[in-house]
């Protein structure tokens, strides 16, 4: 009778065990991917540093700083958001943190009478905004795990088109920065127009190198270089976001594995108690029955009890192997 409860518990424990194995595997995979993703962040740094250097030297060489990507808008009517989230869930609050930050920002823009445009990376971002009835300008997906430069290039192209055509006067970049294994932070930064000071285009006069020859004209080189800079910046953001995604997933899966372990311990305890109760009840029943049968003949009582207990133990153990 009580054996039924024991069987149910045993089944739950084995299913929790199976889930635990999966979450543990996901935790380990995520942990190894963080390292790889961090390596990619590092590998991308030389390029963007060199691009910044060249821009600074160009500006020092007298390139006019009047590229469309640098044009400061007079009035902002529409703000575009580039949102970088994940393709998959099971990573704690990683997706929601970025998406909520963007939604809050859109709300405050609307209060100020500005329209919005959304350029999304990651299935979860597309799902979140289209479900809530936002109009999505462009959505990219399938590379949040391991973004390539060509992915960043395609996204940057769509952003630059929106900005240069004047449909949006400002572009914000929202992603999760990877500060360390233990801490990642959602940031919403201005992406376009590019800040002349940020790319070193204004500080170069004193750099002292000077005396460069240019081929072709400095302003033409700058015109080719700035889109590369925007791409490199977006690529860096995609890489950092992917490192953050793996870190968030590793943490979430570690918590899930720990929970499964706790649950297993508790359920095993309850199950053992249920089994013990079943045995105790059965012994009580046997003793009671034997006593009632042999009220007149005291001599055989102990033998009878011993026999019955052996018999019921045998059935109990076969029950267990059945379960």
């Amino acid at each position, binding site marked *: 009778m009580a054996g039924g409860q024991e069987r149910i518990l045993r089944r739950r424990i084995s299913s929790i065990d199976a889930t635990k194995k999966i979450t543990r595997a996901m935790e380990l995979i995520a942990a190894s991917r963080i390292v790889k993703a961090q390596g990619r962040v590092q590998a*991308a740094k030389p390029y963007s540093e*060199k691009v910044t250097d060249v821009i600074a030297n160009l500006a020092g060489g007298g390139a006019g700083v009047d590229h469309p990507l640098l044009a400061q808008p007079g009035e902002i009517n529409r703000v575009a958001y580039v949102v970088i989230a994940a393709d998959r869930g099971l990573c704690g609050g990683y997706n929601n943190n970025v998406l909520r930050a963007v939604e809050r920002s859109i709300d405050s823009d609307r209060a100020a009478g500005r329209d919005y445009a959304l350029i999304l990376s990651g299935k979860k971002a597309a799902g979140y905004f289209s479900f809530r009835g936002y109009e999505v300008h462009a959505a990219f997906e399938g590379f949040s795990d391991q973004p390539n430069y060509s992915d960043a290039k395609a996204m940057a192209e769509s952003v630059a088109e929106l900005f240069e055509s004047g449909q949006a006067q400002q572009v914000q970049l929202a992603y999760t920065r990877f500060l360390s294994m233990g801490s990642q932070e959602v940031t919403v930064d201005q992406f376009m127009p590019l800040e002349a000071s940020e790319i070193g285009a204004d500080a170069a006069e004193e750099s002292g190198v000077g005396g460069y020859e*240019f081929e072709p004209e400095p302003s033409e080189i700058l015109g080719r270089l700035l889109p590369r800079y925007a791409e490199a910046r977006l690529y860096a953001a995609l890489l950092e976001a992917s490192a953050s995604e793996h870190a968030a997933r590793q943490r979430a899966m570690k918590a899930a594995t720990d929970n499964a372990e706790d649950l297993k311990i508790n359920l095993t305890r309850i199950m053992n108690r249920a089994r013990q109760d079943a045995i105790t009840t059965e012994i009580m029943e046997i003793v009671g029955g034997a006593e009632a049968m042999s009220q007149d003949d005291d001599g055989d009582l102990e033998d009878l009890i011993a026999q019955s207990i052996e018999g019921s133990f045998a059935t109990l153990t076969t029950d267990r192997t059945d379960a």
Partner: protein
Amino acid sequence: MQVELVSPEAVLFSGECSQVVTRTVDGDIAFLDNHAPFIGALDVGQTQLWAADGVVSLAINGGFVEVSSNAVTILSDDAMAAEDIDVQEAQADLQAADQALASDADDAEAALAKKWAETRIQVSGGN
């Protein structure tokens, strides 16, 4: 002089070279030791680096070159070393580009694709 070839995903080459030949949008240019400071935009073309252990040939699909204080930095988001080039793929790209050009001679994208395919075939040494 110190030469670095940097793509967004990795540093492809880093080392001492005696000579660098590359192609800017205005034409081929060679750098020897102690070249004057120079910044150029690169065209689709072949780049050769005279390294200590032989000449390294690369196909470069646009980019930038900076020379200053005896160091050459080449930035390119699409560069391939001769041994990494898939000649058959390049041949197929070349045919596709030719077809696109045959139907529309002003197709700038196809013209670029053709140039890039030809460069890859030339650099890999197979004609």
